[in-house]
């Protein structure tokens, strides 16, 4: 495994658009893929920095997303602002533990897992660690995959507030929290996108 040579050593550059492993010699001064003419990079430039920036933005947005109410319901039974965590507790208390669990996984566990996972990847790449390289790559793929599952909450709020418009009987309106939550999801997806998983395998002196 250690004997494997890296593309840099072989003078190859992989195009991330069309998957062509181009010889560095065949590249013109503009660094474009000979096949698809898209910009070609040996490693995504400033990948870790961009990932970190998006990640921090995501964490910052995560705080108001959980503190601010995401939805405002009003009706004959009074009016209430509900936050994500408050909603989970309410479902849990009223016995709908399955729904509570679903919301918890989609809205709390997944974003949190993403923060930790990306943070872990960043940290390991920075330390040039060779620990569990394969699993870390798998982790990256998972993070990429589960990203959009967090949009569940956003969709719930969007649907509810669009459908529940019965004037006096009951109305639901989105509140600022859901915008922050949406931002968290988008920003963490961008963060994951900025990360170049090839860094996991890079060996640097």
């Amino acid at each position, binding site marked *: 495994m250690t004997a494997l040579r890296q593309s840099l050593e072989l003078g190859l550059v992989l195009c991330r658009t069309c998957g062509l492993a181009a010889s560095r010699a065949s590249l013109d001064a503009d660094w474009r893929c000979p096949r698809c003419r898209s910009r070609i990079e040996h490693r995504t*430039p400033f990948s870790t920095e*961009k990932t970190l920036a998006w990640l921090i933005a995501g964490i*910052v*947005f995560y705080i108001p997303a959980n503190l601010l109410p995401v939805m405002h319901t009003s009706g004959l039974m*009074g009016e209430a602002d509900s936050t994500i965590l408050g909603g989970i507790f309410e479902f849990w208390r009223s016995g709908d533990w399955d729904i509570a669990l679903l919301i918890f996984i989609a809205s709390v566990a997944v974003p949190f897992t993403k923060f930790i996972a990306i943070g872990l990847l960043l940290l390991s790449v920075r330390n040039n660690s060779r620990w569990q390289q394969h699993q870390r790559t798998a982790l990256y793929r998972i993070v990429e995959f589960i990203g959009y599952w967090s949009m569940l909450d956003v969709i719930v709020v969007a649907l509810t507030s669009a459908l529940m418009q019965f004037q006096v009987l009951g109305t639901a309106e989105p509140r600022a929290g859901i915008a922050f939550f949406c931002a968290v999801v988008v*920003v963490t997806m961008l963060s994951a996108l900025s990360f170049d998983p090839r860094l996991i395998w890079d060996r640097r002196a």
Partner: protein
Amino acid sequence: MSTAPTPPAEEELPTPAVRNRRWIPRLVWVVPIAAAAIGISLLIRNWQNAGPQITITFLSGEGIQVGKTLVKYRDVTVGRVSDVVLSADHKTVVVSADLSKDAASLLNADTQFWVVRPRIGVGSVSGLDTLLSGVYIGLKTGTATRREREFAGLENPPALSHGPRGRELQLHAARAGSLGIGAPVYFRRFQVGRVIDENLLPDGSTRVTVFVDAPYDGFVKPVTRFWNASGIDVRLGADGLNVQTESLAAVLAGGLAFDDGPTEVVPAAAGIPGEFTLYKNETEAMAPPDGEPQFIRMRFTQALRGLDVGAPVEFVGVNIGSVVAVDLGYEPQDRSFPVIVTAKLYPRRMGTAHEVLTAQGKTGSDETIGAFVGTLVNRGLRAQPRSASLLTGKLYIALDFLPSSPRAAFDPSSRPLELPTVNGSFQELEASVGGLVKKVSGLPLEQIAADLHTDLKDLHDTLSELHGRVLPSALDTLSALHGTLDSAGRTLDLESPLQRSLAETLSESRSTLQAVRELADYLDRHPDALLRGRRPQKMPQRPAAPSLEAKP
């Protein structure tokens, strides 16, 4: 896709062009910085909007929910309950509430808080929305300048929530009747205010605080009289049945009414008095001022069933007072039980007479009054119970001049004055009715009944005779008469032979008579025809000869 099979030497590799793209990472960092800025601005806004936190103590936390129960001022949400805990001594409930920043100015030392629950009274229904939405805490700001953060909540909502314009008035009453807080106040059957407080004073009387809304508070004048319009005022007195009510709501929930009192000379500058008297009813309220009453006592030697406390005392037909006590006395000399009636008289009700008497100085002191009444007694003034209404059997006391009555002793110095009495006319009526009844009972009713019975029996016999014998023969006669009439009808019929032959006969006799007349005419013109017979007839000379002549 030819890739170099052998790694190219380092020196073969083209030197990568170093492109300065340092601005990209810098641009990326804008995102977290912006996120942080938004977060911090939110925090600052939140901190700026955070209003005061207050605590309110209630006796019970019924319906109050943490995070849900709102604090509302004029139905606008100004805060939310953040905590409900028991007080240290477990006797009250301490409710903490976070108010919005602009609500801070509402919090004065005398700001009142109460829990708004659905309340359904006869007069009004309030807080119905809380049936579904749950209770909320209402607040009414005060006027004190001192700020306060801890309040004692009211158990009942204040009658006036939001300081409407109007006038607050104090009424004093011996008893409040069926009033309650919120009971309506009427001016000419128009609701203009309500009762906002009711207090039992240490002396047992009641003070009622009412609020009259602007602009109707202008109707409250120094001469205004207030009276209790609670319930239905039904009085069955000597003057018949009297029913009074202000409105259905007032009947059920109680209420007050006011109006201008009898127009008296009131100084124009007189202000609204601090306290009004609350009268029992409209009649009492509207009565002219009676002045000081004078008490008299009367001693009757007859039973006075139907004479109630409150029965009128009339002087020459004018109501000048009422009976205040009916008591039973005992005379040891003749071992009798006279009925002692005490009445209060209002001399001012005598109107002009009172004024004249006052001018003559006859009403000044007790002595002059006693002497004056003495002269009236000498002229025949007597108290007499009279029946006010045969229907109700109620009595009243009439003070009248009965010059024919025997002289009676009168002590002008006794207090109260004791008026001589005569027995009531209703006893004479009773006696005459009794005589009538006696006469009726003396009639030989049984004999009359027996005679009548015999007569009726005879009549019955006569009738049965008529039925058994006379009626059948009468029927026969009638049927014979019917046959006769029938044949007569047939005879007289136009088609009958008799009729026809009669008609023929008549026709023949007519032609016979015609012939005779012709003969007579002929003979008249030719008398010789009797002897010579008839001459042949000439042709007529004129064409328009009479038809008779044309005939043979």
